[in-house]
């Protein structure tokens, strides 16, 4: 198992370069060139990768001993490593961080506890917490993958298993694949025993219904939700323009309506021939303005309704591109748990 993160390696590599270049006294411009080139290559490599750094916390236990649960967590971790999608954060380092924060490893196994106390110092992007409980030949397994930065659960897996204990270990290993959003290998699936009931939740997964609900509430919101910002902005702007046009047309219509009502009243009451003709002319002019603006507001509101419907339909039908785990890039300082030195942490898209 790899004991340090690739980011830790990156930082150490930079330190090494600094020393090396200072010894051979290479020119400053060359150093910058190499630094930029290396950083670019590292970013490109990272962008192509789909690997995330994960710290696995010892699972909580119920009905089994601490030693057993530690062994089972180790099996889970080993299988996680087999997925080749996770760079595993050293569990000893993680446990040391927990104890350094004045807590006990046994007493801090929930994501809330870990992230509240050592969240800023963790060198991993994600943590996996879980629980194993046993009642006769029934086992309840659970695992949660939590984003360290957002502190939100990305995957929640729960498996109810009934059968022999080796079948439970197989289920645990399958969970290691499923929590990484991968199909378990055939060799594992064929090893399955007993009866299994499984639930997989992806709380932050975007859905078409979610997009439709947002698009219905506010044009463009559904697209923003799906990261289709330009389309979202387009729908929102179009709706605003249509509604604003409708509103101003309504204001003009309303004014003209009042004028028609007023001048027509004057006309009906008028007994002076010149005045009567004047009010008649004004009534007709106001009536024309009223009709024009009524037509305009009708068209504008119909357009707004059409835009709203198209926006809803488009949001619903837009293909959802799920962001891979750890795809959001962040940069920040934190303490390297191994060297106990400040570390520049760069988190970038890994797919």
């Amino acid at each position: 198992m790899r004991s340090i993160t690739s980011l830790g390696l990156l930082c150490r590599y930079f330190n090494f370069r600094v020393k090396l270049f200072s010894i051979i006294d290479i020119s400053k411009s060359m150093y910058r060139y190499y630094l930029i080139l290396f950083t670019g290559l590292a970013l490109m490599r990272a962008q192509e990768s789909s690997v995330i750094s994960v710290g696995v916390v010892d699972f909580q236990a119920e009905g089994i001993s601490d030693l057993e649960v530690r062994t089972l967590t180790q099996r889970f971790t080993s299988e996680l490593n087999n997925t080749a999608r996770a760079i595993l954060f050293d569990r000893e380092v993680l446990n040391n961080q927990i104890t350094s924060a004045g807590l006990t490893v046994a007493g801090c196994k929930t994501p809330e506890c870990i992230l509240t106390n050592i969240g800023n110092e963790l060198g991993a992007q994600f943590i996996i917490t879980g629980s194993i409980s046993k009642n006769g030949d029934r086992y309840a397994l659970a695992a949660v993958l939590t984003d360290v930065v957002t502190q939100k659960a990305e995957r929640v897996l729960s498996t109810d298993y009934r059968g022999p204990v080796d079948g439970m270990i197989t289920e645990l290993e399958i969970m290691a694949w499923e929590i990484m959003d991968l199909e378990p290998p055939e060799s594992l699936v064929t090893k399955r025993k007993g009866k299994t009931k499984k639930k997989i939740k992806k709380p932050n997964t975007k859905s078409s219904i979610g997009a439709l609900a947002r698009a219905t509430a506010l044009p463009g919101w559904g697209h923003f939700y799906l990261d289709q910002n330009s389309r979202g902005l387009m729908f929102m702007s179009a709706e605003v323009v249509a509604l604003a046009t409708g509103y101003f047309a309504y204001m003009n219509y309303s004014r003209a309506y009042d004028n028609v009502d007023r001048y027509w009243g004057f006309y009906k009451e008028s007994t002076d021939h010149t005045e009567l003709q004047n009010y008649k002319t004004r009534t007709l002019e106001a009536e024309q303005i009223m009709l024009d603006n009524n037509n305009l507001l009708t068209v504008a509101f119909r357009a707004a309704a059409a835009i709203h419907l198209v926006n809803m339909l488009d949001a619903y039908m837009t293909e959802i591109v799920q962001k891979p785990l750890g795809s959001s890039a962040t940069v920040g300082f934190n303490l390297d748990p191994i060297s106990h030195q400040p570390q520049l942490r760069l988190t970038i898209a890994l797919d």
Partner: protein
Amino acid sequence: MRWISFILTACVSVFVSCDLIDPEFDNPLDVQNNKPPALLISPEDYASSLGQSVEMSLYALEVEGVAGMRAQVNYDDTMVEVTQVVPGTFFDSNQSPLFVYDDDKNGKIDVYSVFLGSNKQVSGTGNIAIINFRVISNGETVIQISNESQLLDSNGNSIPLQSFGKGVIRAQ
């Protein structure tokens, strides 16, 4: 159900339209409604109630060189009664016109307004008399200017009238 209401709201907004006024230019003094020269009642509709008075104005429309006139007004004496008749502004009081009226109490009233002298006359549109009616019975009654009405020029010649107006009193 939530979705249905959203869709219905959206559909309703597609068919949105505002209330419109369709003005009817029915002022009796508008030459488009009555061919001049004419004797008319304006306005034409009056709403009242039992025991209340209604002030009805008689107008001459687009007349030329009028020195005297006789307006005969027919009314239903079971519905209304005449309480007062006063001269209008058309026959200018500075020119001292003779203004008299004769109510036969059987649904017919004759109103006369005449300039004494051959050089006095008026033209145009104006109020010739105001007749006050009292409503004595509920219902709808028509006050009609009869075609017995006459306009005379300063030489005593009759000016042919093209239109004769009417008014309606609705008493509730």
